[in-house]
């Protein structure tokens, strides 16, 4: 009966798809391609209401196969893509974008640009929300390519400029690229999302033309608009911009403070800490200590010698001056139950000593002060250091012995 036929057809379609997937996952591109030609028949009766219909399957699988197949050429690929664009109107823009990426990966930038322009002029029925978004993406990527051309022209001009020779035509062309790029880049970064590349390019353009206010506004918006995902990069870009602008310490610190709140394990925390340490205000130095303690909580910082030297320096300073021991006490309080096992075990002492003497020196100093001279880490490292007759370690031992009562004060 027809019902059965339909069922069987559906079954054989599913089987075919699973064969293709099997071949794909075993890198048998040729076999996969052969099965795919059979699968094309499934377009004939496409009643499926699945998440991904057969035409989309063919597009996705076909691209993958052509990308890896040893006998495929770019021409074939382009041909396939053109067919796919007509196969599903709803997907037109998506396919275009994917095509452009392939062209870019093959270094065909001009063709990519052409394709983007073509896609931009495409219209079909009433524009849906999704189409609108995809169109914005197409425009943004075109803007990115314009930016690429702009920076190429800029480099030519800079080179020529050194020769003392300026080319008006090139300059005009460059400005033209700027205008085209700026318009499109500006649009995309208004939509909430992660647009790191686009933002960086746009800010670069603005800075070149001296529009620092607009650049600052863009970066502020990107960092502080609550509709955007909490993107630590946004704060990094803002910080770097402020630094380039030679802004005051205060504004740099406030930018990094927010980064610290979002990602306390960020690489820039060392800079932040150094900045805070130099400050004359007690409150900021207090924050600096907290920043470095918090950073060292994270597994990724465990063997960061620079961070340990920052902490060692600060702790040492506080111990010598005998002021603000309560700061250490507060920080240590929430860590004393797990830092010894996490940072100052005997195993780590051995390994740090073998791998990085510098690191083990800094850590031993911190361990000796926070846990007393009987702590395993300090004992092992100072013993090894003295055995190796390193002066630094002898001084360390003396220093810790002298201030051995500190640990009682901070843990009591």
């Amino acid at each position, binding site marked *: 009966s027809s019902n059965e036929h339909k069922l069987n057809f559906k079954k054989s379609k599913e089987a075919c798809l699973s064969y293709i997937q*099997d071949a794909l*996952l*075993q890198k048998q591109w040729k076999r996969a391609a052969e099965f795919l030609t059979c699968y094309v028949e499934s377009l004939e009766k496409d009643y499926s209401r699945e998440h991904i219909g057969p035409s989309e399957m063919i597009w996705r699988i076909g691209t993958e196969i052509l990308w890896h197949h040893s006998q495929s050429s770019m021409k074939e690929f382009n041909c396939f893509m053109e067919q796919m664009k007509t196969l599903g109107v709803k997907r037109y823009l998506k396919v275009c974008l994917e095509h452009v990426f392939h062209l870019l990966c093959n270094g065909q930038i001009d063709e990519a640009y052409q394709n983007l322009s073509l896609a931009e002029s495409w219209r079909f029925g009433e524009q849906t929300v999704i189409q609108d978004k995809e169109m914005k993406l197409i425009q943004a990527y075109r803007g990115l390519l314009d930016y690429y051309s702009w920076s190429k022209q800029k480099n030519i001009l800079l080179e020529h400029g050194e020769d003392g020779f300026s080319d008006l035509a090139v300059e005009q062309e460059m400005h033209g690229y700027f205008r085209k790029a700026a318009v499109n880049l500006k649009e995309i970064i208004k939509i909430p999302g992660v647009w790191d*590349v686009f933002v960086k390019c746009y800010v670069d353009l603005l800075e070149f033309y001296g529009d620092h206010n607009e650049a600052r506004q863009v970066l502020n918006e990107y960092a502080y608009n609550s509709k955007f995902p909490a*993107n*630590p990069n946004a704060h990094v870009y803002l910080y770097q911009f402020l630094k380039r602008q030679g802004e005051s310490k205060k504004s740099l610190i406030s930018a990094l403070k927010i980064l610290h709140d979002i990602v306390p394990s960020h690489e820039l925390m060392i800079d932040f800490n150094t900045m805070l340490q130099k400050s004359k205000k007690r409150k900021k130095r207090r924050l600096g200590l907290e920043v470095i303690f918090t950073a060292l909580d*994270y*597994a*990724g910082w465990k063997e960061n010698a620079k961070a340990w030297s920052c902490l060692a320096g600060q702790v040492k300073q506080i111990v010598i001056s005998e002021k603000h021991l309560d700061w250490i006490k507060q920080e240590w309080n929430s860590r004393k139950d797990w830092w010894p096992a996490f940072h100052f075990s005997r195993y780590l002492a051995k390994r740090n000593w073998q791998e990085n003497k510098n690191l083990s020196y800094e850590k031993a100093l911190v361990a000796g002060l926070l846990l007393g001279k009987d702590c395993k880490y300090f004992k092992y490292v100072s013993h090894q250091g003295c055995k190796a007759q390193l002066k630094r370690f002898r001084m360390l031992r003396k220093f810790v012995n002298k201030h051995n009562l500190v640990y009682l004060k901070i843990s009591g």
Partner: protein
Amino acid sequence: GCWFPSLVPQDILYRSSLCRKLQAGKSGATLDFAKQLGYFFVDHPEDAFGSLGHLLHKNFYLGNSKLKRPARNSTIRMTALVEDINRLEARRGCPRQHLASRLRWFSHLCRDWLFEVPLGLLADCLHEELMQQWSNLLFDDSFTGGALAWLPPEDGGTPMGRLVHPGGQAMNHLYFQDVVLEELPRAQGSPQQFELSGRIRQVAAARVDGQDFVGVRSDYHCGVWRVPGKTGAAPAPLQVIRTDMPASCLTVSPHLPGELSVCTQSGTIYLWSIETGLQQLRHDPHTMFFRDYSPWRWSDFTAHPRVLSCADRTGLQCLDARAPKRCHFDLFKVGEEAGCQQGERVVLPMYLGRAHPSQYLVTTQFSVYVLDERLPLVPVLKWTHMMKAPPLFAHLLPGKPGRSHKVLLGASRTQELLLLQYRVSFWGVSSGGSQSACQLAGTPQKLHNISGCLQHLPTQLPHHHHMLQQRLTAPAAGLAAMLQEDGLHKSMLVFQLSEAGDVFSQRLTHKASEPPAPPSRDEATTAPGSSPLFEAPDSSPQGLGTAALRYRRWLRAFSRACREPPRHTWSPSLSQRRLFTHRDLEGPAGPSSLQKQMRQRLRQTMRERGRIQCWEPLALRPPPLPQTLEPAGGPDPLSTRLTAAWAGDWEQWWEERTSFSVAQRQRALRERRRRQKRAKSRRSLSASFTSSLTYQSELSELSDVGPQLLSPSRPPVLSQESSPPASTPPLHSFPISPAPDEALLSSQSLRCRGIPKERRKTLRDYLSVWAEGPPEPPEPLGSQASQLCIPSQSQLSSASQPRRKRPRMGF
């Protein structure tokens, strides 16, 4: 050896032609509820209707001939009923109803009182169990995480590692097997074995400070072992915890030695430290982001040793163990941010700390995501994995800086294995300040699965082939892998565990990539077929050379196991029609002397208002128990019922039995709490688990104890159960000591109670066992103990009741 294949859909699905016809249109399965209920009655007749069966024994005639006039008034012929049932079976669903009228009449008459456990309640329990079994068949998440762990050799040590995996018939033995890495991995020596009390669901391991910590999860117990880094050092069990709800997750901290995280199906997440015990981080029976009924929870560690991730099917959150209520953030949400499909659910999250300290893997039934906790909610990598079953196992093989990281995904039912490689690439030129995005390196690759090696095996006898196929297609239960590098020769070794307890391995060797491919892609090829490393490791293969030999050896062991007579054969079938001959059923003319004796005894007991503990005549009884004291503990339900019946309070008894009164519930609760408190004070470990008895145990407990406690018509002797008024201490009760079991255990007190010397030890053992754990005492000893020496301890009486088997059937 042998293994028990797990449940298959055919076991519990309803199959009949009628049903098939009805179902032709709609999809969905019908569970054969009636059949299962029938199985229960056949398998556990005593539990189903033991007491009434005994009582009505006389009124059921099992013979074939017609009943005579006087007998017909009080007896029914069961064979007729059986015939009716058979006829009904034969024409299942026949619309001619009158055929079943006799059955209807019988069931209408008996339904309410014939069953030991009220039928509605029993049916509810069975239905619940059946649904659970069915959902487990559709998707069993209890193996999430996998039960295979590889403990790599210490750097620069001998090329030897250790596999940790379960085995044995019930997968309740934990094995630590040394494995020498040669051309093919070889098991060395016999494994270290630990027998556990439950099926092992998950084995998790992490290396901290050069020591491996191995966490083992079974349904109600979690344990942790420490394996010192030195080769050949024996693993040491450290601690065990018991949970009231099945645990769904156990992960070992990669940061701090002896720290684990445990989740239970009640939605509770604990941080478990060997030194400080358990800390409850969260208790929430509901899912986090949207409503989705699923008790599954997962938890793992993050870059910060005090911050744990917790997951359910709807997403992941990170919470700070120092302030779990206040400090938490969302890491992953099934929804728009990650571009999820409809119906997509989290299957397995995993911390990728060894590859990148802030990254996370999340697999769903459709896709794989890599997340960065610094930029939560927006995945840094997404890929549709196209696996046929959801990936329950994952294993990370971190690459050296600049190289790709490898992730292996494994599914259980389909045994699929998938290798994907990704690279953390830094984009943005800034000085070490930019977020990293991830990129797949090369195309993902499918690896050989266990059942694929069937074709490489020599031809077998058909039935052997079938058995072999069954064995090799058993669902996968775990996954582990390691990278090996000697000079230029790079390879990857993948281990796969099957539910039958076999471990298989395959090696992938690195080949230089071909010109058109991206320059540094890892092209991996597998050796043909996988090779069983060793079979269920009770026989340890030693000194095996080639793969073929291994197969032969494994096959030989396998066929030997096949030849053993199967453990459970079909129960012998008997024709019920001619079960008894006419003569068998012909009773003696008058009451026998035994009956007379019994009647006399009964009358006497009634006069004394006591009760009869044992119905057997004295001559037939086993050597007398040291019954020195009045049996004052709880009598068994049958006796109570009889007592009540004799006293004429049958009706009231029944009322109380079916509907438990409030007071009694309160008492049971109070008692339970008291027991908990005692248990808490003794075992600090399980103390933090909220002890909540399940519906089932509540049922069985109450139905056992209830009537005796409340029955107003109970004889005065029984009233000693509740704490007696101080002014009139019952005759045989002892003063209640504050620490009853200590006092009870001293041999002096035992002696003064007249307990013979040789029994004292048994009693003491029993009491100490009871004091340690929830009481599940062996039956005779339990009742005996309660009768002998604890007559006045109300809190003990219910616990030491001989427990009836739970009414839930074992399928």
